[in-house]
């Protein structure tokens, strides 16, 4: 864990992003600690997605710095970010429906057994380890061989989150993980986010529903017009305050 003297996993300082003359993000600063859930809230077009894409290496910032575990870091690509432990789970892109849970879980990281010059998939190990991981994150009723197409939206998110955690995710970025989910499924996804948090993973959560995000987040970073309007501890800001801020009142 190297230089975690400051105890901060990710810190962004004065981050900005321009597309030509359009300023998408200006002077954004916030940080996340291990085992902390930061809710990133803001209206549509406020700059949340741009901020996320800078942190996961998809865009390069126009200005400002990103500190990863205390060190200034240039994120060159999503692959580079992923190799550091910055994992993003998107709503629809996360899983292959036609493959089983286990085959999705180990996609591009499949365990193999070497037999002379050829490597064969270790299907047994893939299934057993997937079952173990599913139990670890609190999903006890799914068979690893089930095709993902059979899962509910909440279960899909759960599997996608479990996957990133298992493969060394230290910072999990969740973009609207519950936007298409029922109340019950949302609770399930949140309980898995809590499980992952309890294991020391940092979470940045983008969420539209102020009640949900206030419920689960430890800190709330409010983005408005490409700026950080405020960075609040949960206790210092209520759901009503958040809604008022977002609606534009000062």
């Amino acid at each position, binding site marked *: 864990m190297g230089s975690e003297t400051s105890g901060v996993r990710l810190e962004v300082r004065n981050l900005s992003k321009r597309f030509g003359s359009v300023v998408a993000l200006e002077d954004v600063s916030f940080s996340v600690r291990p085992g902390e859930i930061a809710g990133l809230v803001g209206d549509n077009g406020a700059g949340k997605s741009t901020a996320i894409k800078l942190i996961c290496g998809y865009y390069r910032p126009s200005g400002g710095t990103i500190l990863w575990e205390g060190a200034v870091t240039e994120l060159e690509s999503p692959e580079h970010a992923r190799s550091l432990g910055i994992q993003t789970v998107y709503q629809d892109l996360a899983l292959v429906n036609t493959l089983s849970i286990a085959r999705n879980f180990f996609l591009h990281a499949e365990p193999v057994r070497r037999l002379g010059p050829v490597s064969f998939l270790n299907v047994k190990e893939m299934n057993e380890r997937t079952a173990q991981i599913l139990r670890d994150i609190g999903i006890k009723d799914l*068979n690893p061989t089930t095709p993902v197409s059979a899962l509910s939206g909440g279960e899909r998110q759960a599997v996608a989150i479990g996957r990133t955690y298992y493969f060394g995710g230290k910072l999990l970025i969740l973009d609207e993980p519950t936007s298409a989910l029922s109340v019950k499924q949302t609770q399930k996804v949140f309980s898995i986010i809590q499980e992952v948090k309890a294991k020391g993973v940092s979470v940045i959560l983008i969420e539209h529903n102020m009640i949900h995000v206030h419920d689960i987040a430890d800190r709330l970073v409010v983005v408005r017009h490409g700026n950080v309007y405020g960075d609040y501890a949960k206790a210092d800001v209520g759901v009503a305050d958040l809604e008022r801020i977002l609606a534009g009142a000062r």
Partner: protein
Amino acid sequence: MSSVEERDAPSPRLNRPSLMHRIVRVPELMVLAALLIVIIFFVIMAPTTFLSARNIGAVLTASAQLGVAAVGMSILIIAGEFDISVGSNYAFTGIAIGLLSTTGGLPTWVAVVLGLLISTAIGLANGAITIGTKIPSFITTLGTWLVWFGLTLALSKGYFVPVKANDPLIAVIGGALGYQFYASVFWWVGIGIIAIILLGRTRLGNWIFAVGGNAEAARAVGVPANRVKLFAFGLVGLVAGISALFTLGQQGSMAPLYGQNLAMQAIAASVIGGCLLSGGAGSVLGAMLGAVLMSMINSGLILAGAPTFWYQTFVGAIVIVAVVINTSISRRVAQMK
């Protein structure tokens, strides 16, 4: 947050799939049922001839020629692409091997190796064009189908092109073994087994399914999606060349007009065998059995004394029934935990 814990009680959502689930999830189920029906039908219609050694040999030999193309085609369909040009590739490669070994004076083995390199390169070119232009492969290979068909006619000047008579290598690849049985059957089965293992038991196989099912999700975890698709295109090219070798072994020559139905038949065999046209699901074994089914219908109709043009009608009807049943099964399987 007790909603998860609440489900600790034995739930109907099982930790072990039921026997019923496991049976319905077998992608080859449909084609096996169809084979059974067709065999019973023709045994009744042509009792003495249909199960004769000669007919079984003839059916398997015809299956090998179509089925080896179906092995590649099913993998390409699973990867989410098509190759309509496979028949032109087949004819072009067969003629190229013939010309290289006779007019060109090359040793047969050199001509064969060069021929397979040509057919693989044609497949890779289809892939490169499709991936590079982002145009659907159905369109790009429709174009290359005509391009290579034209070049085949130009190269052969419209005539049959023979290979050297009694060449031992050609005999090993596709020579007669008696009872209408040809060596190609063994090569086909061997290639099929390798392909089945590749698809089901290797990382590359997992990536092929993933790329066909959701290329973006596969890319997001680092699967080199374009290279996986390119591999599948190259593979279809390679098996088109192998299919041409089988024909050279059986007949000693290749005609420029041969193979013009090969792509559609290979796609039909793949679909009958359980491949989803949308990609991401299917079976090499199913496609091989689909090729057997189609060859069986062809020879069965002849033996039963029916005019052979019924073959197309039969196969067409089976393709439609197969797609309807496969789609409804896969929709149901998709919902089953």
